[in-house]
């Protein structure tokens, strides 16, 4: 029996702290010595993935202060003015987009790791293929149909779906906020997570609202059948009960979230925080924010710090800050780590429509109380006169981030790691 399995079945680790030789394991959790003994410190850890759909312009999000003139020359029509860049403590080379004060605060607090230049060899410029690459963890020459987290969860919870839910794992392994379970969660036969179709309907479920808006149907007879079917599908979802219970058990505590309707990502993360603090043992949450495909009109002409992209970054930054605050107030911030990703970055040189075209590498924001704050890698090297073909170069394979998260945060052992990630990847020091 594996050591962690042993713990799982013998010690109700959620209720009672685990003691070895009189020492509370939790107190040593961060010590490499104890990790060598056992992975039980990773037992309750949760991963939150924030997908930025469309290809985020990393260069306007994390700005190379050390290459400012090259940066400015390459994208005069959209470059952030130097004096508006948010500066980071202990970091002279890099700054943030002016709308990201939330991330700035967290960075200065040591809760953000900025990983520069994340991509993969032979990058693909199609949204769909590039997204698949990130979600499956495949090489760009491969066509893999399972997701990287699906493979992890299959290892973690063998025999799904026959033997689940069960008393050891009564909760969904992964929750996607959105209509479709992310391909990242796809296992060999089944999706290894469930989707909460959208926040609105989720709130309806919490508030015991029945679906009311059936006006468009050609008859009451159809509406009658549908309302029956809808009620039934809510009731029959094997996990609807536990999710509802968890959400009911906890309340949103942070006042930093924006008002309802203003920031969809906020709404999604609010749910995630409630489910975590409500006691779900769910390992992975996936949330989405779209609109990053900024080919044109990325900024306002008169003020490059405003506009479409600025709004998206503000939403992102603001909701992560509120989410972290919420987790802290709920007392679960020890257990949560998150990461943003986008299918690709954008071109160094801006185009004539005030936007940027599909590019290659971009920075990834890793956040969490246990994260090792600071920057990994260096600013992207920008040529003196960038051409339309110049791209931000890769410094780290995204699967090195996956490997670090799986190994150090989710407690996957080394052998399992290469079978989940299909190849071998170095890890990065993401955790303190």
């Amino acid at each position: 029996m594996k050591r962690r399995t042993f713990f799982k079945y013998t010690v109700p680790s959620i209720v009672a702290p685990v003691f070895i030789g009189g020492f509370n394991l939790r107190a040593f959790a961060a010590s490499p010595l104890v990790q060598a003994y056992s992975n039980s410190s990773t037992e309750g850890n949760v991963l939150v993935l924030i997908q930025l759909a469309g290809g985020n312009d990393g260069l306007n999000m994390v700005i190379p202060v050390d290459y400012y003139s090259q940066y400015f020359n390459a994208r005069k029509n959209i470059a952030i003015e130097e004096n508006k860049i948010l500066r980071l403590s202990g970091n002279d080379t890099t700054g943030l987009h002016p709308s990201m004060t939330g991330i700035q605060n967290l960075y200065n607090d040591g809760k953000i790791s900025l990983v520069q230049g994340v991509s993969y060899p032979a990058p693909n410029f199609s949204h769909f293929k590039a997204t698949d690459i990130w979600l499956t963890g495949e090489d760009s020459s491969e066509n893999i149909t399972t997701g990287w987290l699906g493979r992890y969860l299959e290892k973690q919870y063998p025999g799904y779906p026959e033997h689940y839910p069960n008393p050891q794992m009564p909760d969904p392994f992964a929750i996607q906020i959105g209509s479709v379970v992310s391909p990242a969660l796809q296992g060999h036969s089944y999706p290894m997570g469930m989707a909460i179709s959208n926040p609105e309907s989720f709130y309806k479920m919490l508030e015991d609202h029945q679906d009311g808006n059936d006006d468009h149907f050609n008859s009451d007879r159809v509406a009658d059948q549908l309302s029956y079917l809808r009620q039934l599908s809510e009731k029959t979802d094997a996990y609807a009960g536990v999710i509802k219970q968890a959400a009911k058990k906890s309340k949103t505590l942070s006042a930093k979230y924006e008002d309802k309707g203003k920031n969809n990502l906020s709404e999604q993360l609010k749910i995630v925080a409630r489910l975590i603090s409500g006691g779900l043992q769910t390992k992975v949450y996936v949330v989405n924010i779209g609109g990053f495909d900024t080919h044109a009109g990325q900024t306002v002409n008169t003020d490059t710090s405003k506009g479409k992209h600025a709004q998206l970054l503000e939403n992102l930054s603001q909701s992560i800050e509120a989410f972290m605050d919420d987790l802290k107030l709920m007392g679960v911030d020890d257990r949560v780590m998150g990461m943003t990703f986008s299918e690709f970055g954008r071109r160094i040189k801006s185009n004539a429509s005030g936007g940027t075209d599909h590019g290659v590498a971009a920075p990834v924001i890793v956040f969490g109380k246990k994260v090792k704050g600071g920057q990994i890698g260096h600013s992207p090297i920008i040529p003196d006169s960038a051409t339309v073909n110049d791209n931000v170069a890769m410094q780290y394979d995204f699967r090195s981030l996956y490997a670090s998260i799986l190994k150090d945060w989710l407690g996957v052992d080394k052998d399992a790691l290469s079978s989940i990630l299909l190849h071998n990847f170095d890890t990065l020091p993401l955790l303190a």
Partner: protein
Amino acid sequence: MTRRDIFRSFLPKNESPEWRDVSFPDIESGLETYKKPWDESAVRHLLRRTQFGAPVAEVEYFKKYSAKKAVEELLNTVPVNAAPPINNYNDDKVTDEQVPLGQTWVNATNNSGMLTARRIRSYKSWWMMQMITQNRSIHEKMVLFWHNHFATQTATVRHPQFIYQHNLLLRKYALGNFKEMTKAITIDPAMLRYLNGASNTKKAPDENYGRELQELFTIGKGPGSHYTEGDVKAAARVLTGYKIRPLMQDTAFDPQRHDDGDKQFSAFYGNAIIKGRSGKDGENELDDLLNMIFDQQEVAKFICRKLYVFFVYSNITPAIEKNIISPLADVFRKHNYEIKPVLEKLLASKHFFDMANRGTIIKSPVEFIVSLCREYNVSFPSEQNYLSRYDAFEFMLLRSAYMQQNIGDPPNVAGWQAYYESPAFYKLWVNSDTLPKRNQFSDRMVLFGYKTKQQSDFVGIDLIAFAKSLPSPENPDMLIQGSVQYLLGADLPTDQQQFIKTSILLSNLQDMADHYWTNIWTSYAQNPTDENKTIVETKLKQLYKYLMELPEYQLC
């Protein structure tokens, strides 16, 4: 305790949501012929109800007709004369000594416990095959209708050859004469076994068939039904004398076992007396009995109500009884119980095509599975690969049984509850157990299909081919709209379609992102590399998995 309470008490506790009392405004339209608009929505409605699902090619075909002509063609197309079920069951445990593999067992005489079970399984797979591979006709739907009406259970009959003969009988009369059919069913070996007609003798009368003949097969229990217990007994006496000849595999009338006394019926039958007949003439009492029963107005009404619930909607209000059922019953009687004129009147009517009646039926499991296979043109192994072919249809059969409709074995002689249990009716098909099973089935067909045991033939959905068959699949709005129209029983509001488009086809890209789908679809069409195929297929899998999990997909 009301009827409703009693009924509810049969259901597992807390598993089914409350259903509302159904009281909707009445539908004004009557039996006059429906003319316009003869659009795709009308064609789909007709096809979903009279066949299984509305495949793209079928809709194209019938679009050029009128409602009346389409109904005529569906009623008059002669069904395919299918080859009988075969031995697909030899294995290391069982070898059929009489019937070689691939040959039909329907004339075999060597039934045994093991062989009987396997032949029945082969028969059911064969029936599933008939439904999925049906031609352009209402025939298969009617066979299912009559199976639900003259319900028998293979588990009780336990005689594969009789069971198969019984099915042929349903096929022969499916669109024929109901009175002749009732006679044929009465002396059909499977029915004689199922309702003990073969043990009904002068010495020891068995009332079973005499009762169901009136209660379930002809008169029914509607408001105009007043036959008595005495009528049950009298009918049973008329029906004495039939026996089964196992070697000949047929039915014979044995005058020795027949009660040749006079049989007195109640005031409901006008105090009719059926004069006892002796000797060989005794079997003609059956005609006297059926003449007496079929003289009752209630017979035609009862059958028309059942046709209505099967083809139109479950809630027969007093207005529908008056404006639809009654005139239909008149047509039925006027044509001496010929079935076609009734169906023609009903199915070509304004009432049938009324918007308020579209999408109002929750598919039965058989409809769910057979429609899915037909809508997506799922391919099955060829007749040369008969083992694999039977295995594939058996898979469909078992899924249907798992979802609580096991053809050949309805729950009892009354047929499936969803066709008669008021007020829930079709809602009874779906519950906390069967709804997830439906979703699992459609997920499976979309995601990875079924591989047959023998040759690992793939039985699943070719999503790219399906999308190609829709108008302008390169346009994400058109692709979603076309899919919604072909697959869902009720329309989806535009904002929901937009939501699906953005979150699935466009991976949450916003603004001018439609062309991303167009580009990838077009690059696949021009250059079908594995990479392009995977991208397109992944999107389509998500799209169709999502659409088929919607409650609207349960409707037809």
